[in-house]
């Protein structure tokens, strides 16, 4: 039996057995299984450092009894191991002698019987390894030949072909098949003892077409150009500044500082500053923040593939949809999974996600963004007497309990008297998320809207996400610096 036929084990006979044997023994159950294969390729200084390939089979069985979840993991898929696995999972959720104050139940939701295939234009399983390697060689050569100041280069390509199946106690049976590709280019440049680096990447749901767009082809030259520019950049002087954030940084802000605080599991765990604030005005009325992971948004950015943070069904069988989080300044929704929705009397809104079939679904974002308004970027800059234009991010995080957040930008420019003057590196900006929401003095128009993609970490799981927005201007942001 081939790797991908393994999921056929979940036939009517087995499903009937599961239904019969779980009845009245658990409050809820679900099963996720996944078969996947892929390549991971890395070149450094034009030499191959990793040429690898894999095949994996993963399956988890989750059970709920009186508010306690059991989670059993297996990798050998046949009807016997699955039956035994279900028995083990039932035992796990019934661990005796530990009382629970809140024996919640999962509210029944619609069930789906669906087969979904997100089609790749150029299937990665049909692209020969030689072609993938040539792509990396090209990027390495472009970056290396860009300038004598380029001292080393690293290009990484990762692809994955995956088939998943989801079954649950409400009768859902959802089969999905799709492919993912990510490409990274990192360039280190050096001059007079100073080393700087820059990294750019593309990612999406789809096939090899993801790395064949004009934008994807230019990531190595972009990294080389930026690394060299940064050689001449200075470290920032710390203090409070007017800051203009680019769409990628705005995306990081709405994701880190707002989005995480709206995850209902953190709200229930009293880790969110937004607990109890539904219906309250928490931002200026120009601020509308949404999370929309539905398919079909790649075309909005002229991309021949689906956005990396998209999905049709979440990992609990709930159909994805657009959720308004803050509408015209008012907090109106949290993001939910099955458990949080059931416990908070809300409807699940498609945000129960897990990094793999063997990780427990948490409440996670998909594509989170700030809606555009009407400012031109040029207007924002020209009206700024003294400030900093911050572009793109290296990383960001937030303490959702207090709202304290911190981002490290990739490239920044000082603005003096309405004009960009000198370049700055490693600018970190921080603050309190709710205060910042009320200090936004300009939100860019549709033309300035953009997004970025990546992996978001929470509780040792990483899921694919996108975030974005237009350029915005914020007053009184703390900038960290060495001087």
């Amino acid at each position, binding site marked *: 039996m081939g790797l991908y036929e393994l999921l056929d084990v979940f036939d009517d006979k087995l499903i009937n057995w599961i239904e019969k044997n779980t009845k009245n023994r658990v409050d809820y159950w679900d099963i996720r299984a996944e078969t996947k294969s892929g390549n991971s390729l890395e070149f450094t200084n034009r030499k191959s450092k990793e*040429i690898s390939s894999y095949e994996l089979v993963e399956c988890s069985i989750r059970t709920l009894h009186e508010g306690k*979840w059991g989670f059993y993991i297996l990798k050998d898929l046949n009807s016997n191991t699955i039956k035994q696995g279900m028995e083990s999972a039932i035992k796990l959720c019934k661990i005796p002698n*530990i009382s629970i104050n809140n024996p919640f139940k999962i509210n029944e939701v619609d069930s789906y019987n669906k087969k979904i295939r997100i089609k790749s234009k150029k299937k990665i399983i049909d692209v020969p390894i030689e072609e993938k390697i040539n792509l990396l060689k090209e990027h390495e050569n472009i970056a290396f030949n860009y300038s004598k100041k380029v001292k080393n280069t690293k290009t990484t390509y990762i692809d994955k072909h995956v088939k998943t199946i989801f079954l649950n106690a409400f009768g859902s049976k959802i089969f999905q098949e799709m492919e993912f590709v990510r490409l990274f280019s990192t360039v280190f440049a050096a001059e007079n003892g100073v080393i700087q680096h820059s990294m750019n990447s593309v990612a999406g749901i789809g096939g090899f077409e993801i790395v064949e767009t004009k934008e994807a082809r230019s990531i190595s030259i972009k990294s080389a150009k930026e690394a060299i520019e940064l050689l001449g950049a200075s*470290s*920032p002087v710390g203090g409070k500044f007017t800051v203009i954030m680019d769409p990628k940084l705005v995306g990081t802000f709405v994701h880190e500082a707002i989005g995480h605080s709206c995850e209902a599991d953190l709200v229930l765990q009293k880790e969110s500053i937004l607990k109890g604030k539904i219906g309250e005005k928490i931002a200026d009325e120009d601020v509308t923040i949404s999370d929309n992971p539905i398919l079909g948004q790649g075309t909005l950015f002229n991309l021949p593939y689906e956005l990396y943070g998209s999905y049709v069904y979440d990992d609990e069988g709930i159909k994805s949809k657009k959720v308004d989080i803050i509408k015209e300044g008012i907090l109106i929704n949290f993001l939910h999974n099955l458990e949080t929705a059931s416990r908070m009397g809300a409807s699940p809104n498609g945000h129960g996600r897990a990094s793999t079939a063997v990780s427990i679904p948490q409440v996670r974002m998909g594509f989170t963004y700030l809606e555009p308004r009407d400012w031109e970027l040029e207007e924002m800059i020209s009206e700024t007497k003294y400030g900093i234009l911050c572009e793109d991010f290296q990383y960001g995080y937030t303490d959702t309990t*207090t709202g304290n957040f*911190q981002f490290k930008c990739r490239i920044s420019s000082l603005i003096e008297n309405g004009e960009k003057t000198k370049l700055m590196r490693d600018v970190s900006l921080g603050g309190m998320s709710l205060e910042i929401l009320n200090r936004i003095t300009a939100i860019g128009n549709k033309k300035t809207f953009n997004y970025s993609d990546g992996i978001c970490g929470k509780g040792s799981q990483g899921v694919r996400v996108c975030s974005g927005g237009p350029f915005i201007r914020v007053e009184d942001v703390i900038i960290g*610096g*060495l001087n």
Partner: protein
Amino acid sequence: MEFNNYYNALAEKAFNFARSFSSDFECLEIYFSKNDYLSLKIEENMLKHVEKGKDEGFSVRCVSRNGSMGFAFSNQVDEKHLKEIIKTSIKMMKNGTDDPEFKSFPPKFHSYPRVKKIYDKQVEDLQVEDLQEYISEMINRCKEEPLAISHNGIISVDNEETQIYNSNGLSISGKETFCSVYSSVIFKDKVSGASSSGFEYQLKRFLKDLTPKNIVELASNNAKMFLYRRKIKSMRCSLVLTPLGTKELILKPIASAINAESFQYNRTFLVGKKGKEIGPNCLNIIDDALIDGAIGSSNFDGEGVPCKTKNIFLNGIFLNSGLLHNWYTANKENIESTGNAYRSSYSSKPSIDITNFILKPGDVSKDELISTVKKGVLLNYTNDKPNISTGDFSGLVLQGNLIENGKISTALNETMVGINILDLLKNIQQVSREFKIYGSYRAPWVKVKDVQIIGSAP
């Protein structure tokens, strides 16, 4: 050394198959790993998740005569899949570029160290019920804290087995266990509305060594300490790092900077500093794989090379031999591997990592160290990392306090620290006698002079 007979038999068949299938490889390696784990999670101070699973698989790594490497892995551990993965690995190898510096894999070694107390036999037949008591202790301890409004915790136990074979005749196997407790609490003063979070964790080899109740208590003390925060003005002053702060701002950045791979590519702030004085006499760092019972200890590394103890910084000098190597990076410099090849599981090819990374304790007590600070900042935790190629660091103090007249006072809000790690090392004044162990790190309290603090008070 106990070998898993099933892996032994598979490996023998695999080498025979590989040789009959291709004569293009110089050396071929088969790496098996298995991890049986059990984990119990507390959410909202209630037991919420009980998880049990097994992650088992193998990888095949091969290198051609011209130094091109191929790698492939699967979690379907049987003869059929092993043969397929060998074919794939060889195909990957043939598609790589030549690398004359890649000289085979390690040879057969005649002896290995024998680190004690890294495997807890009690964990072998562990049942969920055996961990019940630990969970109850954690839940009950948190209930004693009147200001605690939420508590997340984890107890997990991992039982790992690794077996490595290569066609140079190397074969080695090992078993180890990891038992851990994590506790994170949220405190809220209902009158003032002030809230804070605190955490603590513990990683041990033996289940009986875990002290879950104590970990919840430490997490609670941690939260209490940072409950009432205030903003301060920017200033240049002394910075005192707690053991966790020392781990984040001294040990982790140095561990990244002495990774031979990054170093050979000139990507770290320590390039050009070998043999030079970087800090004061009290800056002494070692990487020691051979401490009985320690979390980072091991008899062999991810490529089967024997592990050892290495000096990294001695009396403030960054030693010429102060890099951490795997087989490839060591060959590049014609030296012996330091036994620091790291693989998290069968699915990762060898990278480089620390074993037990230790800043040696100094001769003052931590109280004396703090008592000499007239005005300064105590840093316990930051989530920021320095830029490893430049050493520049600018980060938010997530947990920290003001120090006034030798005493720890108010907790800090919206405060950032900015310094280059090389300046931080140069400005170290004192290292405490007391230290704490965080997994593979051992860190004392450290006092650093002349650090830029950026506050947000007007």
